């Protein structure tokens, strides 16, 4: 399948304009890029857990989705869509449905890393043919910027605030992409909205996989990260260049780096965002050092997995 811009702009737009996401939101960019990877001539069912994307695209009596859509609750988008996929498999077999359908979840990091992890794990393990996309903005943004399992150490959020006795989030984030890969499913990838061709290609592979696929897409949020709204794509790009968000895929168990980068110090990336502003005070320099050490260690581990060393 083509990833030429001229071809991609011809693809159907499943998410229409007029939704109520913030100007400069990374989530809608992630959704549009992922859905450019949907094969031609298939029908789609999209699911959201509760979150920014859900409340902004489905306000009754309107919908921004030009296709079937379901939201049921917060922690269970994967389980809900696994039921839809199971219904499809049997109804198709019974001859009650003629068309080919694909199933895709778009969940935030709250609905994916934390409250929805169990339902996601069960769904991946059961082998449903669906694509699960995490639009990862590294905190609970819908409820007003609270820490999540995806939040970077040292980051300010409203539940990991900076104060006299706190320097932001104490703990390191969990490696959700590796957790998904540990389910030994056909396709897992980490992507960024800044690298659109890489992302669309990953989406194409995910929709082609004969089983579950998981893509973790970095989708910056200017409200939560505290940067000017026009810089969303630039933030995502800097994260990739600092190797704090490396781009890779795990295809049938084989790990591959998908973007060559000249690794930049993480400080340059952190400096651009208000959520890390307190880290540049003298008393917090150890945290900056620890963040860089974490990035270095995770990068080394990834290079080894990808046999790049």
């Amino acid at each position: 399948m083509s990833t030429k811009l001229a071809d991609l702009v011809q693809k159907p737009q499943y998410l229409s304009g007029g939704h109520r996401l913030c100007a400069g939101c990374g989530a809608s960019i992630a959704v549009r890029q992922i859905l450019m990877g949907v094969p031609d001539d298939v029908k789609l069912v999209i699911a959201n857990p509760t979150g920014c994307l859900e409340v902004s695209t489905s306000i009754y009596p309107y919908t921004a989705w030009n296709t079937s859509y379901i939201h049921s609750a917060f922690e269970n988008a994967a389980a809900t869509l696994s039921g839809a996929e199971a219904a499809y498999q049997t109804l198709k077999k019974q001859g009650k449905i003629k068309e080919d359908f694909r199933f895709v979840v778009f969940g935030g990091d709250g609905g994916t890393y934390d409250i929805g992890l169990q339902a996601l794990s069960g769904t991946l393990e059961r082998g449903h043919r669906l694509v699960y996309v995490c639009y990862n903005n590294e905190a609970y943004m819908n409820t007003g910027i609270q820490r999540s399992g995806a939040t970077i150490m040292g980051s300010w959020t409203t539940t990991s605030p900076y104060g006299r006795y706190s320097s932001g989030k104490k703990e390191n984030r969990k490696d959700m992409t590796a957790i998904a890969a540990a389910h030994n499913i056909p396709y897992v990838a980490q992507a960024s909205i800044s690298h659109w061709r890489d992302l669309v290609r990953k989406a194409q592979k995910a929709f082609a996989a004969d089983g579950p696929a998981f893509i973790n897409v970095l989708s910056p949020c200017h409200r939560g990260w505290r940067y000017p709204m026009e810089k969303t794509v630039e933030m995502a790009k800097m994260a990739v260049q600092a190797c704090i968000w490396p781009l890779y895929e795990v295809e049938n168990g084989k790990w591959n780096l998908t973007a060559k980068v000249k690794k930049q110090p993480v400080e340059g990336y952190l400096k651009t965002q208000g959520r890390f502003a307190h880290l540049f005070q003298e008393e917090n320099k150890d945290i900056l050092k620890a963040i860089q050490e974490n990035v270095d260690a995770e990068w080394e581990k990834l290079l080894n997995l990808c046999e790049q060393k």
Partner: protein
Amino acid sequence: MITGSKAGTKTVALIGTDAIAEAMRQINPDVVAAYPITPQTAIVETYSQMVADGLVKTNMIAVESEHSAMSAAIGAAASGARVMTATSAQGLGLMWEMLYIASGLRLPIIMPNVNRALSAPINIHCDHGDSMGARDSGWIQLFSENAQESYDNTIQAIRIAENPAVLLPVMVLLDGFIISHSIDRVELLDDEVVSHFVGEFKPAYSLLNARNPVSVGNFDGLYGYYFEFKRQQEEALLNSFRVINEVGEEFGKISGRPYRFFETIGMEDAEFAIIVLGSAAGTVRQQVEDMRAKGIPIGMIKLRVFRPFPARELAEAISRMKAVAVFDRSSTFAGNMGGPVFIELRSALYDLQKRPLLVNYVYGLGGRDLSVDLVNKAAAELAEVACSGQVKQPVNYLGLRE
């Protein structure tokens, strides 16, 4: 299996969970999503075997929790599939959030719930605390006295739930162990008869209708239609009164066992009566019949439909009584207000000019046995209330070690 002789039916010896599994096999749903829990487990096991043996077309999802069981059931039902699940106690508790979403999305999911006490302390035996807690979740609730009624209710539930005037999920309730694990005589209908009775599910909307894609579970916004949706849901529940009776009557024609909201014994000439639901009705019935044979003017109501609550019909049935004892297999923790059946029945009687005295007997929590002696004790106290015209203690505990 021991086979019987009546034309169109087969008489067999089955435990309650197998009777449910047989009903499920004959209904042949498109999707079953379930998680095992004592004492429901045998339903999931038996049905899994039926799927493995190719006896049904069902796509069975062995989910990782009850929350996901109900979530997957919701996704499948929204996709136009006929969907069933089953659970018990803690499993029903874990589903809680999704119970309201299943009814709010108006999805006709059928769920046998094998009644078991809720923790803590952990207890695997029967009481009605689990499903009674779910009484305001928007589900229709049908109680069963034995394996036969569990089977019959499951088949009828499909028709009630899928009726376009209703479109609500239905819980079929059977007592843990007492029904679920006891061998009972069950008359099974022919497969074709059940298949014809339940018919084909033709949903008006489906996620998988390529010509008419739908959005399900949209955000109601800040000044939306939530109130109107909930009022419509109430209307659907009101409609279910008519549908439950129509389906019960039609089921009578194919089985010889018609069903209504409740069953009465001796109410035409009784002066006082006991109201009970679930398996305890068997014990109470025997005692009531024995007492009536001795000339004691006692009657009995076995309540089958708890949601919707048939308040008008129950009030009418007991309005001439001097006193009524309500047996509740759960407590409400409302502050000595009694069990849920007692509270609802009291409310149902409020508008009557003349109403019976009411006493409540909370019994059988955590599987405590309801013996014949305890029923007789309650009946004697009830006779005393009817005779004296005075209730000394409205809420009583039967079989409690005090």
